[in-house]
């Protein structure tokens, strides 16, 4: 059987450990934390974004300041209405497939 004095001491010690109110302590700690580094997912997004911008700029100047766009429009404007319709449908289908593929891949990642 426990000494009653032991029980009393345990109870007293527990009672004498009151909850210390935060009173801005957490905020002070958070202000002193070192700046966080970007997570891998965010780093990857930044790398892809920067690489895309650089590629576009390089392609623009490497192609004679985008003359290929002008030429493409000129060729498209010379197409027959049926050919133009087929090109638009092909572009639409391609974009839909790409969008679906991206969405399904993203869902798969989240589930893992």
């Amino acid at each position, binding site marked *: 059987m426990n*000494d009653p*004095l*032991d029980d*009393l*001491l*345990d109870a*007293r*010690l*527990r009672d*004498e*450990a*009151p*909850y*210390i109110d*935060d009173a801005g*302590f*957490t905020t*002070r*700690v*958070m202000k*002193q*934390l*070192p700046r*966080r*580094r*970007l*997570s891998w*997912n965010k780093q990857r997004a930044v790398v892809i974004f920067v690489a895309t911008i650089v590629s576009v700029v390089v392609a623009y100047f490497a192609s004679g300041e985008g003359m290929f766009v002008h030429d493409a429009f000129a060729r498209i404007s010379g197409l027959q209405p049926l050919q133009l319709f087929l090109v638009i449908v092909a572009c639409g289908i391609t974009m839909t497939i790409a969008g679906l593929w991206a969405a399904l891949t993203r869902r798969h990642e989240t589930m893992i």
Partner: protein
Amino acid sequence: MELTDADLLARVLVDGDQHAFGELVRRHQSPVRGLLRQLVRADVELADDLAQETFIRAYKHIRSFRGESKFSTWLYRIAYNIFREHARKRKELVGIDEEQLQAKADPQTVDPGLRHDLMNALAGLPLHERTAVTLCCQNGLSHDEAARVLDIPLGTVKTNVLRGREKLKKILADWAT
């Protein structure tokens, strides 16, 4: 549903989520600050400075937490190490200083109330007994967990708790008679 410590830790580790770490600080600040207040003998400002250092160090080394013990036990260990570093710098671990402080905190002369007598008696215990009693009797750690926090053998923790408790029980017994 409230997130567990493990959930919050996962967010800190995977996403670098500082808000999740903030929630961990909010949850554990009270016992960590309480422990440090006992260790530095109620110098509240110093205890809070050391507690801040504890959480900042925990954040910097969060990847070294392997989940073998509770997160709170890991925090107590960091807090105790920071206290020891601080004490070493200020030579507070020298025996004569301990004795002087012990005399200063004589429970018979400070306050007539049992509550204060007990707290003063706790503050007057030698550092190793005070720390062991605070961890095991106030913060609810097992002897094994306290041994890991203090990095000393299990038997030494048990002895320190027993000796500390005997001294505190004497105060209680005096009040009972």
